[in-house]
Structures are given as structure tokens and as C-alpha cells.
């Protein structure tokens, strides 16, 4: 297998008030190196649970991984020692979160926050980087996310930046330690449509230019079509359909996928 990330037959359940609910059933997905993969589903489909399981940030209990494997570079994340896993998280694989306001600490400057992340990532990987180099690296990633004045932005507090800029800070955060896999959870959905378009543009550009693998988790079929080449459709904890993105839209096989596509309002108006 050559996939960078390979989730195999994953089963996850939640136990609340003594009742067990299976939330992921036999889920398998592959994200090859440098590929752009989308995982689409409505609320409650299990897409966020899957993402959290992969990142190792699923609260256990109440959740429990019942079976399956998550291979990253052919090593199983579920069985490797916690130390090794920590070394991967936020470094080789990173995450772009959805809500730019709640993911940034309002009382620290952007540099404080990015610099701290970088420092910890360096420590985990046993890398040495001085203060000046850290500052340079932070400015470099801010430039990569197309900040026009990286130095001013680095010295700003989150509230001094607009929503779109904050979302770009979160992308910069994910890029700090040169990841190979970027997992994006509905980036831009909290933003205006023009800003969202810029964020998607930026992500697309970054993944192709830096040869990153992208796993885009979203409920928006338009976002799926514009950011991925291969799509998994999720419903009630299962992968119900998977195909190249163009095929999903041209010839959806499953009734669920067809209904989902039919429910999306079209810019061209109703088909008559």
C-alpha cells in the first residue's frame, strides 16, 4: 500500500448513560501522498468523529475504538506508543480547524501562539531552532498564507484581525512544521462566501505547490467539487459511496448520494 493515511475497517462507539451507540461502522478510507480527498456527510454522519480518531483527540471514554487500524506511513497510530504518536500530531499530520475565533487565544499575539506551537513541535522532533529562526519561520508561513504584512500580523492580537485573516492564521498554524497531511474540518464555513472562496483557493494552491495530501471534511458539496479529486460519502457512520469526485457528481450510484445532490439549490435556478 502506498497511501500516506489509510483508515482500515474502523469501528468506534460512544457510551453515554450506560447506552452504547455505534458511531463509525467499518469505515475505510485512503489518502495517498499528495492527493486531495474529500469526506462529505451531513451532521451526525460521523465525519468529525473520524477526523478526531485519526488525530487522536477523541475523548476516550465516552468514545471507544472497537476495532480497525489507522495506518500513517504504514504504521498503526492506534497501537504505536503515545510518545511516537505525539511526535506525528501537529507535525507530519496537522489540522485546520473550523472556527477561527475559538481556536485562537485572545490574550496572546499571533507570534506568541505560532511561536509556541513551533517550539513544542521542534522539541518533540528533537530539532534545534533559535529565537530568531523561529521568528523567521513564523513570518515565512504567514507569507505562505498570503498575509500582506506578516510582521504586523505576527504582532497582532486575534481580535485585531478579520475573520478571513484569522482563518488564514489557522492554516499557517497547520503549516508550521511542514506537514505531509493536512486535515481540514469545514474551513471557511464560518466565513462569508467571498472570504471562503479565498480560503479554498489558498488551500488548493498550497496543497499543489507543497505537494501536501489534503483530507477535506465538509458538508458542502460545492466545496467537495472544488477541492478534491476523490470523494467518500458518509451517512450514519458508514461510507456509503466512494468514487472520483467527477463521477460522484456525474453518476452517483447510491440513493443517498443522489438525494443529497438533488437537495442542493443550483445557481442556475430550478431545473424545469
Amino acid at each position, binding site marked *: 500500500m502506498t497511501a500516506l493515511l489509510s483508515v482500515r475497517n474502523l469501528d468506534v462507539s460512544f457510551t453515554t448513560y450506560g447506552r452504547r451507540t455505534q458511531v463509525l461502522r467499518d469505515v475505510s478510507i485512503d489518502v495517498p501522498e499528495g492527493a486531495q480527498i474529500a469526506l462529505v456527510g451531513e451532521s451526525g454522519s460521523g465525519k468529525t468523529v473520524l477526523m478526531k480518531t485519526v488525530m487522536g483527540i477523541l475523548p476516550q471514554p465516552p468514545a471507544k475504538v472497537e476495532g480497525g487500524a489507522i495506518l500513517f506511513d504504514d504504521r498503526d497510530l492506534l497501537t504505536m506508543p503515545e510518545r511516537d504518536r505525539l511526535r506525528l500530531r501537529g507535525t507530519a499530520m496537522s489540522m485546520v480547524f473550523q472556527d477561527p475565533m475559538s481556536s485562537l487565544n485572545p490574550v496572546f499575539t499571533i507570534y506568541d501562539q505560532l511561536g509556541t506551537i513551533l517550539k513544542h513541535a521542534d522539541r518533540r522532533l528533537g530539532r534545534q531552532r533559535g529565537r530568531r529562526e523561529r521568528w523567521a519561520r513564523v513570518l515565512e508561513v504567514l507569507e505562505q498564507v498570503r498575509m500582506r504584512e506578516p510582521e504586523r500580523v505576527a504582532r497582532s492580537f486575534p481580535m485585531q484581525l478579520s475573520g478571513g485573516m484569522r482563518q488564514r492564521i489557522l492554516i499557517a498554524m497547520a503549516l508550521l512544521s511542514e506537514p505531509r497531511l493536512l486535515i481540514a474540518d469545514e474551513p471557511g464555513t464560518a466565513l*462569508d462566501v467571498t472570504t471562503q472562496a479565498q480560503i479554498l483557493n489558498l488551500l488548493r494552491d498550497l496543497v499543489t505547490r507543497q505537494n501536501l495530501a489534503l483530507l477535506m471534511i465538509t458538508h458542502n458539496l460545492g466545496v467537495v467539487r472544488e477541492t478534491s479529486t476523490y470523494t467518500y460519502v458518509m451517512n450514519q457512520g458508514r461510507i456509503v459511496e466512494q468514487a472520483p469526485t467527477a463521477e460522484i457528481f456525474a453518476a452517483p450510484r447510491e440513493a443517498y448520494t443522489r438525494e443529497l445532490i438533488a437537495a442542493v439549490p443550483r*445557481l*442556475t435556478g430550478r431545473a424545469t
Partner: protein
Amino acid sequence: MTAPVLEVRNLVKTFAVKGAFGRGRGIVRAVDDVSFSIGAGEVFGLAGESGSGKSTIARMVMGLSQPDSGDILIDGQSILGRGTSLAHRQQVQMVFQNPGASLNPRRTVGQSIRVPLDAHNFAGDRRARVGELLEMAQLPAHFADRFPHELSGGQKQRVAIARALAVEPRLLVLDEPTSALDVSVQSHVIELLEDLVAQLGLTYLFISHDLSLMRNFAQRVGILYLGKIVETGPVAPVFTAPQHDYTRLLLASVPVISAEEEALRPTIPMIDGDIPTAEQLLALRELSQTKEFKT
């Protein structure tokens, strides 16, 4: 010709603002000389991004805030100064964005729907009326005994619609009524709203940032940009041949799912930054006159 159900004339609303950490101050013209009218049975859409003034307009139409100048007429009568009086409430009701927050979690669905009936001293059998309203919203009558947490998002929004209909208003202000819902649920709520227009002759002021939904639900649309309506007209021409650069930018930004829609989207270079400023739009216009720019 009869008077439009809602007429908004040269509406202006300004707010005083402070900069970050209280530094600097100024005045924001949140709504800047906005005029439009909505005929009976019509769905008029206001589309814009955050800060465009769409919610401020909704609040003024609801009587929740007063404009600095301009006038708002319902059936030809000015509503200014009537505030949130019962008479005004009888004519205009609102459906909010997040049904999870707009329903009291400690009241049953029936109790929530009864509030407006009690407030307006509804003369008939109020219990029967609650059942009738639930039925209008296509919910079973026994839902009256349920609490909001027992309902799905779409069901909660139907309850909110039933409650808004309780006093038989002429006009509903729909503020992003489906943006918190899944797309399959959204399509059913929109169908319900359309059925209600046919059944009850309702008129809607529909506020949304979702242009694809706007195209399908509204008959006419006004594009709001920094407090001004920059373009208005029936949806088909506005979407197929947008005249204003900002409308083009909005349309170009919508993620779409088919080649036909893609063909409709103007291709323009994306600006980095947030809501584009007037200078950036001007720069776009210059670009649009060069040959690689498709209009």
C-alpha cells in the same frame, strides 16, 4: 394598483463605533439610503455578507430599532413610532436563524406557540389553534407536548414557523431560516415556506448569504454591499447578467456542483483580504476591461 405589503424608503441607520482597545472612533453607515418594496405574495431576497446591513434592515422592519431617517410602510401605513406594538406584531413576524436558540427550552412546543395567541387575546379555542398551526407547519398535532430538545433542527424550525404564523401576519421576515440546517432538511423547510405562500398569501422578506438558495426561492433580489443596495431586480437577470462588480464577485465565489453553474459564474481574479473595499472593486472594474476578463 394596491400598495405593496412592505415599502422601505431611503432608509438610513448609523452607529457610532470605537476601534480596537477603544482607540479611534467614527460612524458606520450600516444602512445607507436603502429603498425597496415587496408586493403581496412575493418573496424578496436581501443578499449580502456580514456587515452589509441586512440584519439591521430586518431589525428596523420588525420595529426593534428606529432608522435615523427614511420610512418603512406596511400596507401603505408608516410603522415608525409604533415600535413593537401588538398592532405591528399582528402584521409582521420573524423566523430566526437558529431554532435551537429561538425556542424556550423549558416550554413545550405547544406552550411556545400559545405565547403569541395569549398576547393577542386570541378569541377562539387556543388549544385547537395550536394543533391547526402545527398542521400548517406539517408537524403532527401531538408535537404540542414535546420539548425543543426532543426535536430535530428541521422540526424546531417548523415550530418557529408555526409560532410566527399564530397571529396571521401579512409579512414574514426570514433571517437565514435554513442556514443552520443540513441541505436535505433545508430543501423541505423551503418547500413548506413556498406552500404557505400559496395557501395563505404570505409575503416574505428573505435574508440570506446563500446565493444559490436565493436564486431558487426569491423572485426578486437586492444585493447589499456595505449598507447600500448595489443591484436589484428579478433573480434571473441579476444572476445571469450581473451589472455590479460586487454581484459578480459574490457569484464568482459560490462553490457549485455542476458545469452549467460553473459556466454562469463570472471568472474574476480573487482578492486577498476581506470584504473588498471600493478601491479594490474599482481595480476589478479596470481588470474587467482587459480582454482576459469574462463578463
